[in-house]
């Protein structure tokens, strides 16, 4: 199962990912409908999206049991969902969003295996890695943080 990994030290905050995410999913450019968001404080910028947690709080809290894993991607069953938005409250990183135009819960669906943000990010901040490579990628982040870059 692939995951998205963020190399936050490389991000330049251009929000191209927000632009292409909303374009490819909704056919409009609207960062508020993008499933990926660039957060930042002063010069530090990095993107945030659903990271497909193992014991996902959103899945646990859902009163309708509408959220489940399907082929490595956590999806919301629109029929069951009552739009209570509890999942947005418990998500530790703000990866679950509410689409206030089409009135549904949205989140990163890895674009069915070919994430557009990975393709368009000019600095290669976002990377799609198989799950057994995740620890290695995270360790790299820590190494850079403490000045031990390779």
């Amino acid at each position: 199962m692939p995951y998205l990994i963020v190399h936050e030290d490389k991000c330049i905050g251009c929000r191209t990912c927000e632009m292409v995410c909303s374009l490819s999913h909704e056919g409009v450019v609207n960062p508020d409908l993008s499933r990926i968001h660039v957060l930042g404080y002063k010069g530090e910028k990095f993107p945030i999206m659903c990271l497909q947690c193992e014991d996902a709080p959103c899945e646990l809290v859902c009163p309708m049991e509408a959220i489940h894993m399907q082929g490595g991607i956590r999806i919301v069953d629109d029929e069951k969902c009552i739009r209570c938005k509890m999942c947005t409250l418990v998500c530790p990183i703000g990866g679950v969003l509410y689409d206030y135009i089409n009135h549904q819960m949205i989140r990163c669906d890895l674009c069915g295996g070919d994430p557009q943000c990975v393709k368009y990010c000019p600095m290669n901040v976002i990377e799609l890695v198989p799950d057994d490579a995740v620890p290695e990628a995270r360790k790299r982040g820590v190494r850079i943080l403490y000045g031990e870059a390779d």
Partner: protein
Amino acid sequence: MFGYAGKILFVDLSTRLIKTIPTDKYAADFLGGRGIATKIAYDLIPPDADALDPENVLVMMTGPLTGVAPSSSRIDIVSLSPVTNLLGGSSAGGDFGAALKFAGYDGIVITGRSKEPTCIRIIDDEVTFHDAEACWEYDVYDTVDCVKKLGREDVQVACIGKAGANLVKTAGISFSKRNLAARGGLGAVMGSKNLKAIAVAGTKGVKVRDTKRLMEVNFEIQKRIRESPAFKKYENWHANIALSLLKARRPYFGDYEEDYWEEAEEAVRNAKRFFEEMATLRPNSCFSCPLRCWAWVEYKDEEAPMVACQGTFPAILFILKIKDPELAWKVYLRLQREGMDIMGTAAVIAYASRLGLVKLGTEDILWLIDEIVNREGPGNVLAEGVKRASEHFGVPAVYVKGGMESWSSDVRPFRGVALAGAVSESGSISRAIHGFPASSYYTKPEKAKKVAREIVGDESAAEPTNYKGKAKLVAYFENEHIIADSLGVCDTPMLSIPLELWAEAFTAATGIEMSPEKLHFYAEKIRTLERMFNVRRGVNREEDTLSPRLFESVIRSGPWKGVKLDREKFERMKDEYYKLRGWDERGIPTEETLRKYELEW
């Protein structure tokens, strides 16, 4: 409408009336951005108005590509300039333009004058006024923080600092904390309207005609930007830009001194060390742009975002002759916080040194900046800009069209730059000469010659001191800049990508067929309208000139030793330029030209 947000917001500050009109009314005739802004300014500003009158109109327009294509984050601001009292224009990047479009507006038109200091807040359809009495004298940083406390944290802010509030003629409009629509004193226009800030946040988004095609074109454009050799250099641009300007033999020193500043190289080396070793930089970009031309710079306890590509820091080094990078950093912080045009203010301070009011390269500069911002002592006169100050003190100064302070290049050896400075409607050379082959003649000779060969058909046109072919180059690059400003694309990446791709992006976004030829036709039309705006205000051949000192002085030392600007040959370049534009020998568009572009007085 696709690509466009669809409507333009009109705010009358005198009556606090708000209305919107459909962008459709202008889009087919004037493209967007600078084109539509110029048309609105032409229609609404009375020919006899003064820049600081309530009758003046401040137009901020985004283009059809703003927010939907790579490197497209620009917003263009057009108004009557208080510096030149002619058409003034400046543009800025950042996230404001995109946010405005996502809120559902292609532009904002501000008319009238508010009785009390005010701030406009736009959240989608909700437009509200807020009292700005308490923050009227705040600097840009404090204003942005203050406006964000009104509610949504994610608003983008366009505001003025204390300089704009005090109607200082070198004040610009600051977009959030970093991007500045610097030239033309537009901050003073905002100040004269008692408007401190505009905050905008939007959740509506922009519809596009052909999603798939737009994504493909976007990918292609972005790929070309990332594969260009310059892309890698942008990471160290802050450290190297001063050096590359020096190598290109472009800077001038002090108040256009005839003698070369021998310590320039040392100053450049110090600045390089400052960015590479002393300060920490975090590269950043404007909305949708891969270039990362600005960085968050931290040094000791102070920090500021700094845009490298426009050469604001080199202007401080060269014009103010500062060898100590720490002092240059302090000057930068002060000017940035007050929201002032760095090149313009530096030129004013350099002129003050000619009068003996300040010694360049010393801490006194900081004192003089405060005097100008607060309009105290000699600062009150200097705040009026270089031309009016020179009339007051009776000591000749250096300026380009209408009294606008010069841009980073020395005008005398660069004939094309001199011509652009004289014929440009806003006096702002930066709206014409980016990409000019003469600017890079000594750093990338092959590329410069190639550009000259393609446009003029003659390699020697790339040589800076050659008068030949310069009129055609100026006309061509003016067109390219108008296209960039009207589409909402930043001119740095735009010029290195074939125009076909931008035309295709336009077609995919709006569904309207577009070609490079058609874009150039639009540019010529917009250029003619800009000219008409100024002709209506009494501009003709005589006003298309530079300050007399530029023709009289001869450069005595340095790489340009012995070079002077010849008035006769300069006038001949003007003739050539007028002909290319379809204007008569007085510089007035002919009846035939007006018919061609379907324009009316």
